[in-house]
């Protein structure tokens, strides 16, 4: 092993680094430091989970999709409709049901869609999402149509912790724990041989075919898992906010999460965290007061990122670190 630095680097990649504890320490610290902003914090956690699910397909498998909100919305509507119509408001089994529904939609659509690529794939993901959105709009008896379902109520988490309408304390911790589990899953996946295969498909499709890797199967499985995870994020959204409406399925949400992931840096696990926190903080402070200026700034940022910082904020950090290392080394 000693003569193979590349093999060492490969073997060491999945080891936990000391700084990987930071997001979780910060997450718990925020709970005590900002008790009045936990509703916002919950929104951030849900968005991180959603962006993380997108990272699996976009960052690791290289599937460019414009319709990932389809799965977020499917999960969100699943728990909403279960609670509204069947009185099924137990949160954890709701998450499981949402994962199942969104995962099934991901599996079925993935089996058909992932045969295509490029513009066709973009359009197909967009159309799938639009179909679901229109279906939710039309099936008003079930989904509440344009107005959605306001004022949902959910049972206690594990039968112990009731949702905290005023301060979002239990919601925040609940979302934090679910995010942590989701993150563990994604982290385990991307460093497994399965994840290596996905990266291979992203980097060189022809070669993966040539070495006999089951490319389609890998892509479909990754798409399904990602869809299920996005469904869980959507379910969390509905449960913590106690409402669901058409906005969960729209192009704006799909584009938003894409922007978040790219800003943070895709294909690097923690990009979702950095992107979501930064984007939502800026949106929270700027968008309400100056919506047009916010859109202008967002546009300028996107253009700048696409032209100069393709790996997002974490990419810039990496580049700085490398430069620093090169500078301090003799």
């Amino acid at each position, binding site marked *: 092993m000693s003569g193979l630095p590349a093999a060492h680097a490969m073997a060491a990649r999945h080891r936990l680094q000391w700084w990987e504890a930071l997001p979780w320490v910060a997450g718990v610290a925020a709970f005590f430091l900002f008790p009045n902003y936990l509703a916002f914090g919950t929104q951030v956690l849900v968005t991180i989970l959603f962006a993380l699910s997108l990272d699996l397909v*976009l960052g690791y498998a290289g599937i*460019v999709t*414009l319709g990932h909100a389809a799965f977020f919305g499917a999960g969100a509507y699943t728990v909403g409709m279960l609670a509204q119509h069947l009185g099924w408001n137990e949160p954890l089994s709701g998450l499981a049901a949402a994962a199942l529904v969104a995962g099934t939609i991901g599996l079925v659509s993935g089996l*058909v*869609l992932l*045969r*295509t690529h*490029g*513009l*066709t794939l*973009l*359009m*197909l993901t*967009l*159309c*799938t999402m*639009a*179909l679901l959105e*229109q*279906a939710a*709009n*039309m099936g008003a008896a079930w989904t509440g149509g344009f107005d959605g379902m306001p004022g949902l109520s959910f049972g206690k988490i594990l039968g112990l912790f009731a949702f905290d309408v005023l301060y979002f304390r239990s919601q925040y911790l609940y979302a934090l724990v679910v995010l942590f589990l989701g993150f563990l899953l994604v982290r385990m996946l991307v460093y497994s041989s399965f994840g290596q295969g996905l990266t291979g498909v992203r980097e060189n499709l022809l070669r993966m075919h040539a070495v006999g890797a089951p490319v389609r199967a890998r892509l479909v499985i990754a798409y399904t898992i990602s869809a299920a995870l996005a469904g869980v994020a959507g379910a969390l959204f509905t449960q913590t906010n106690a409402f669901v409406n058409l906005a969960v399925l729209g*192009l704006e949400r799909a*584009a938003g999460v*894409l*922007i978040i992931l*790219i800003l943070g840096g895709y294909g690097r696990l923690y990009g979702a965290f950095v992107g979501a926190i930064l984007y939502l903080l800026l949106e929270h402070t700027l968008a309400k007061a100056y919506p*047009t*200026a916010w*859109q*202008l700034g*967002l*546009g*300028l*940022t*996107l*253009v*700048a*990122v*696409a*032209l100069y910082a*393709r790996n997002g904020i974490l990419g810039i950090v990496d580049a700085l670190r490398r430069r620093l290392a090169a500078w301090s080394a003799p």
Partner: protein
Amino acid sequence: MDLLGILLGGFAAGMVLFVVSVGLSVTMGLMGFVNLAHGGFAMLGGYVIVLAMKGWGLSFFPALAVGFVAIAALSVLLERTLYARLYRASELDQVLFTIGLVFIMISSMTLAIGPETQVLQLPEWLRGQVDLGVIRYRTYSVAMIVFGVALVVALWLGFERTTLGARIRAAVDNRRMAASLGVDVGRLFTVTFAIGSGLAAVGAGLGAEILGLDPQYPLRYLAYFLIVVAVGGLGRVTGVFYAALLIGVLDFVLKIYFPKGGTIFIYALTLILLLWRPQGLFGKRGA
């Protein structure tokens, strides 16, 4: 409103879609560049046309010409300075860059002009109705159809009968082969990009009565433009023409009969069509 009337309305809407999206099809076919900002150029052009008539008192046709030239010039500027850097970049970067551009266009128009809908002042002879023998119909819609047909004939002639058209067709079919035969694909792209954006500008101005015109225009119709291009096939002028008519008529008819969820059929149809022929109805296999 009998069947003929509905069909005419649908055709007119389809023509607007065609005029706006045809440039997108050709530029996407040439460079494989995913240009989501195409509708943004259309919107800017529509503003130039409407405001030139309102502010400078230009009459209809000079205003259209001003819109065409202004947007063609702007698109050349952007293409040379920014787009050109991203030709070899991944689809994702192109998507991000052009979405960013759309946001910039929308917000700057909102800041400069305001969020309200702009109304096109039609010249006298385009208002009212015209007698077509079997039916009396809006002169404006009939004029749109005439213009669209004239444009598709002109573009077809340009594509099939001129050297420029032959070069474009060659480059769409096989860019590297065309380049090695001495076609300057970069220059070709700049020219088609300018013409395509200019046409989009004219389309937005002409079609303002049908599609409306406000800062949100590029996002509202983004899916429609993309659907028309994807269904018609990349780089296929006649394909885009048929696709635009199909989508225009369908959309018009469905909005009358199913006002609540008419668009669901369009998306479903697109989904099925693209799964059946991923290269589009009229695109070449493997292109």
